[in-house]
């Protein structure tokens, strides 16, 4: 059985006070993610990929449809605070902007202890400190250089690593990573990506990458889902998508991404892309 099952998911935003306007942000989206799988949701701004992620994370209620994680219907079965706690032990998120994920007035230890509290471990518990240090080592950080520091004293890459350290503490079944490396310098990006791979290999967690970067999705995923204007237009293994894209949007996208090992042949041709 799949770990995550998304069935006929829809989200319609209604806007305007007098004149009603509706935006169909997510249209009849279906997909599944197996345990231990890394998948990517790829699409441009406004394609509905982040909206989908927010619905899985219980941050935004769907208009219709079902999201089932490990047999639990996320928007129907979770009722009590206890249910919620259990859900967030199972599903965890890493967001795009590491600078916005921290409260600047507290040392970064706090965000790690919060994760431990979710596990029911008290701050004073000696086991807590041990787990915490182990998690930091797992993401390539030296605990004594990190603990006690404030967010502004750390680089974006280090901050993002700490967010992943939280995943090592909680060992969730599913991680939703929304553009986790788009604000990180290129030379450190590879290291962060590899942390997700390691986490998957060691703890058999599933990861959903939300990204606009097809190159990244191609490298890391077992399966890629392409979203366009709220619809899931294509899915397949990375090699299927790259070598044989079916939807017009995917074809265009692949044709426009600069490649490293092959020079474009159509650079001298006049544009056929019309921009409104």
């Amino acid at each position, binding site marked *: 059985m799949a770990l995550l099952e998304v069935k006929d998911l829809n989200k319609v935003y209604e806007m305007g006070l007098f004149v009603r306007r509706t935006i169909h942000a997510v249209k009849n989206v279906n997909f599944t993610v197996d345990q231990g799988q890394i998948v990517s949701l790829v699409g*441009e*701004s406004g394609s509905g990929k982040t909206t989908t992620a927010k619905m899985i994370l219980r941050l935004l209620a769907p208009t219709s449809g079902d999201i089932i994680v490990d047999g639990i219907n996320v928007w129907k079965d979770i009722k009590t605070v206890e249910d919620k706690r259990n859900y967030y032990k199972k599903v965890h998120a890493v967001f795009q902007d590491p600078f916005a994920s921290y409260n600047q007035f507290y040392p970064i230890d706090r965000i790690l202890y919060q994760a431990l509290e979710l596990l029911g471990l008290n701050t004073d518990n000696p086991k807590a400190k041990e787990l915490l240090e182990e998690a930091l080592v797992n993401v390539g950080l030296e605990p004594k250089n990190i603990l006690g520091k404030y967010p502004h004293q750390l*680089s974006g890459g280090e901050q993002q690593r700490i967010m992943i350290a939280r995943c090592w503490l909680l060992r969730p079944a599913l991680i939703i990573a929304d553009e986790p490396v788009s604000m990180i*310098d*290129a*030379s*450190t*990006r*590879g*290291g*962060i*990506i*590899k942390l997700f791979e390691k986490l998957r290999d060691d703890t058999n967690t599933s990861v959903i990458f939300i990204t*606009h*970067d*097809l*190159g*990244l*999705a*191609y*490298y890391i995923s077992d399966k890629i889902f392409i979203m366009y204007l709220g619809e899931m237009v294509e899915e397949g293994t*990375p*090699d299927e998508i*790259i070598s044989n894209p079916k939807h017009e949007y995917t074809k*265009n*996208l*692949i*044709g*426009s*991404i*600069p*490649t*490293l*090992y*092959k*020079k*474009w042949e159509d*650079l*001298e*041709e*006049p*544009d056929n*892309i019309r*921009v*409104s």
Partner: protein
Amino acid sequence: MEDTLILGINNVKAYYAKGDQYVKAVDGVSLDIYKGEVVGIVGESGCGKSTLSNVMIMNIRRPLTFVDGNITLNVGANFLELNKMERQELQKIVWGRETSIIPQSAMNALMPTKKIRDLISDLVKDHFERALDENEIIERAKQRFRDIGVSPDYIYRYPFELSGGMRQRAVIAVATLLNPRLLIADEPTSALDVATQKMVLKTFERLRKMEIVESVVFITHDIATVRQIATRMVVMYAGKIVENSPIEDIIKEPLHPYTKGLLLSVVTPEPEVKKRGLSNIPGTPPDLANPPQGCRFYPRCSSRMPICEEEEPVLKKINGDREVACFLFNK
């Protein structure tokens, strides 16, 4: 490739004054740009690549200080020594006519209350002492818009009426109005989506094909983009050039360990990428106010040797047209 030198940069140092110390953003850079070349300058944030773009045309403003070196520009009949010229002089006879620069995010800095047409007439007034016939200039601008495949009607629009790609192309058209020999573009594709990026790259390609500009300097952190447009790639690290090679050579066989690391951190949807894997460079770039002795890449380098800590490698020619600053190749 023709061997007409367009711009010669010789051992240039330009520092930012910060209190009583200097941030050495461009520290002993030598680079020759020849006719017909598209030179891509790449490097991480803070490596000095944008500073270098301003130093190239001697657009030096405090706290940036020109410390040493010389910069010569071919203006046809003779060479001008840019570093000896006054700012007013540069403004009158060099900027806009011989060289042109598209600063980072220029397309988002257009005056929102002015139409593109008014922007053009303002520019012309600034660069010419005697008033030129405005209609003639506007006609010329329209032709340039046509040249790069944009409808000339756009010059009667306000910037906010244009999409990102159109705005960037309008900026390119205006920057090349006087057919500058050298066009410098700083991150011209960075804030655009990939389809629009490709369109802008095509525009640059066309400018060169039509010989509207003779050479282009393209500054970016995106190596795959440089690979598509450049004939030569220059890699900067901590204020210095570490490698300068023809594009095919550097992609096939990067020499400097930093170049290798950078290339290995690029992910594009290509089977080669999966085969070669992904890696990262440990550590962070040095503080340019206090750079390490010896090679600046030494602390992060995987092939470091004892000599690297003590002596500084210089940029040396190897295999004919490649240059690298590393002791691995300094035998």
